[in-house]
């Protein structure tokens, strides 16, 4: 059963982003490594530690753990990056960039989708 997690929560301001990544790690612990697609504000989860507000715990710690859990298939939507004036080089992790037009094709490759 292959799973694609679609994460569109901003990293800070609510617990949603952390809780969605927790699900990813638990799935991996059960040997069902999900692929992850970062959409909209979700792309901000991939910013490096220096951009983290001092009062918040940096979500990058969890993001960098993804690799340790063998979650290697990370996707990010080009249009979402554009929306924040970011490029692939601004991100803390190597990711595959995908255009909005191709997202549905990506989704169709997975049995299950978890949307956060």
């Amino acid at each position, binding site marked *: *059963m292959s*799973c694609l997690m679609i994460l569109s929560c901003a990293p800070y301001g609510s*617990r*949603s982003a952390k*809780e969605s990544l*927790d*699900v990813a790690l*638990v*799935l991996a*612990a*059960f040997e*069902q490594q999900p692929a992850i697609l970062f959409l909209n504000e979700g792309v901000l989860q991939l910013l490096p530690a220096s951009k983290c507000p001092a009062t918040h715990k940096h979500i990058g710690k969890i993001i960098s753990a993804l690799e340790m859990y063998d979650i290697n298939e990370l996707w990010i939507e080009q249009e979402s990056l554009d929306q924040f004036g970011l490029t692939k080089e601004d991100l803390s992790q190597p990711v595959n960039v995908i255009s909005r037009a191709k997202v549905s094709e990506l989704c169709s490759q997975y049995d*299950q*989708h*978890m*949307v*956060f």
Partner: protein
Amino acid sequence: MAGFLYMSDLIKPPALHSPHPSLTYTVIVRCGPHQQGQSLSALEFTKELLVHGHQVLRVFFYQQGVHLSSSLRVMPQDELDLTALWQQLSLDYDLELGVCIAVALQSGIVDQQECRRYELSAVNLAPQFTLMGLGQLASASVESDRLVSFGG
């Protein structure tokens, strides 16, 4: 709920030779009592699955959804009590209602065991609901044909 007509009002439980094969579902409820519309959709959807003979392996309450498992919410008389509706559905169909333990503890929802462990003053997990780890969501998702999530 005036104005709403649900399929369950129209269709009786499926005949054995139903044209659609029965599937196994896991339902994730991420919306809480304050997102009434979404929470009600989750409940009605789950009910429809059961009425139509599908198997619902588990309903998993996560994020805001954990608040639906509190027995200490008091609703105005003319409003739906979603907790009671979930409990009734669970009784009617022997449906498992799992609540993420980590989020529940952070939201002040505890069962007898956690109440003792953390020496808290009250127990408020509603009957029919069970605290469990995220692993139970992961294992349910492996065994399910469909995973449907509500809220966000």
